[in-house]
């Protein structure tokens, strides 16, 4: 059981975002995809849940070809995949409790009481106990992000996709989120894909790191391997030296 993207191409109009993107994520591991802003990290992530379909290439999740899957099958698959959005993407018109319970209400065998129970449990997991009746507008950005977390894990997915989980957060909250990501893997055994440009966070939470550059994976390896790499682009990105990246072929 794993996630595999093979030679994925995706263009928006004339802009080619992914140009032969290939990566494999094994069960139980957490992989970070790093890269500058606008290089298509989120685009790659959205292919995994079928929010986007590849122009060319294939996306395999649990041995099924997501790119060719009919819509109904996709909805079934998505119960196994939790998605944590960059700005949480909470539904403004619903309470926190309703937001977290959204995915659960799609499961026919869940009763109202068992949904409420599970919602409380998920909120406890992200340290937001008793927030059920609040509205998204009433809580802070970091709290919203944690609610997004709770919503993603509510259906006990096998995979969790994190889109910029720590961007724009203060160091303390960043640490809390990183801890959450690690806890998910440790306690729930989920497979994780993290999109980030925060190097510290990437090195802290991942088993492997991949650098996305010009639509392809430029480098992948363990955090240790990446730190030791002598590729110009990798060095430039880790050390924050644009002159190295600009000089790349």
């Amino acid at each position, binding site marked *: 059981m794993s996630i595999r993207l093979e030679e994925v191409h995706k263009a928006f109009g004339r802009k080619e975002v992914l140009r032969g993107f290939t990566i494999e994520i094994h069960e139980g591991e957490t992989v970070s995809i790093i890269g500058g802003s606008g290089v298509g990290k989120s685009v790659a992530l959205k292919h995994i*849940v079928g*929010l986007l379909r590849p122009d060319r290439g294939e996306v395999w999740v649990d041995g099924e070809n997501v790119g060719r899957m009919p819509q109904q099958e996709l909805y079934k698959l998505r119960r196994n995949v939790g*998605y944590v959005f960059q700005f949480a*993407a*909470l*539904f*403004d018109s619903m309470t926190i409790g309703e937001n977290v319970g*959204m995915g659960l209400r*799609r499961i026919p065998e869940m009763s109202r009481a068992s949904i409420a129970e599970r919602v409380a449990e998920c909120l406890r997991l992200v340290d937001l106990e008793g927030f059920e009746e609040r509205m998204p507008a009433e809580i802070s950005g970091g709290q919203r992000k944690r609610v997004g977390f709770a*919503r993603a894990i509510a259906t006990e997915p096998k995979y969790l996709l994190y889109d910029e989980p720590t961007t724009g957060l203060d160091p303390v909250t960043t640490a809390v989120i990183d801890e959450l990501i690690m806890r998910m893997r440790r306690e729930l055994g989920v497979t994780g894909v993290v999109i980030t440009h925060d190097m510290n966070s990437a090195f802290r939470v991942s088993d492997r790191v991949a650098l996305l550059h010009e639509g392809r994976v430029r480098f992948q390896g363990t955090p240790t391997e990446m730190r030791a790499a002598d590729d110009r682009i990798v060095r430039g990105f880790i050390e924050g030296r644009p002159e190295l990246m600009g000089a790349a072929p």
Partner: protein
Amino acid sequence: MRASVVAPIQGLGSAVLSAVASVGTAGHLGVGALRALRKGDMWGPHILAQMARIGVHSLPIALFIATFTGIVLALQASYTFTGAIPLYFVGTLVGKTMVLELGPVLTGLALSGRVGANIAAELGTMRVTEQVDALETLAYDPIAYLVVPRVLAGAIMFPMVVLMANAVGIVAGWLTSLWLLDMSSPEFLKGLRLFFRSWDVWFSVIKSVTFGLTVTSVGCFFGLHTTGGAEGVGRSTTHSVVASSMIILVLDAFLAAVLL
């Protein structure tokens, strides 16, 4: 070839292609909405809220417009008819114009601003803040969850609003005739009944159903296809109002040609 020759041709080509593409996307949305009709469990719980929003909350503005339309129709009719045509024709003109044309069209245009823009802005915001994607990842079909209840509510509630607007407009024209034009009720009613056919009311209802479908689905279309943050939401809202107003007027002419 020179760039000055190639550029305009390229421009035309890309304009046509994007036009065809947007028709395709709109058709896709339409087909998706028809398919999503089966998923009653997904749109069912939300339709009431949308009906309240589209129908009940739009009533004040629709009736306000209808009232003044009725008054103006009566006054202008009497101004036009002075001497030449019997005054009871004021009733005929108010009734016919209100039911056949101004009731549905003015309500449609007003609601394309009120309802259509509101839907486009709401769905546009949901799109740019990734709430629509979030719905998808939580296994909700956004078309069934967001589009169907709005479009259905529009198709059901528009005719209701228009029927009320027609009635209010006619009553306003009647009262104007009584108070400002020295007409009597029997006179006004005689004119009102003179050429009345029950088909007129059906025509009004058919028109308003299509306008309801138009305003809501255009709003949904532009909302769901919003890109580019807050500015994009603004753009979608404007486009939605412009497009649905234009479609309403074209449909108006088309329906008059086909059904009358």
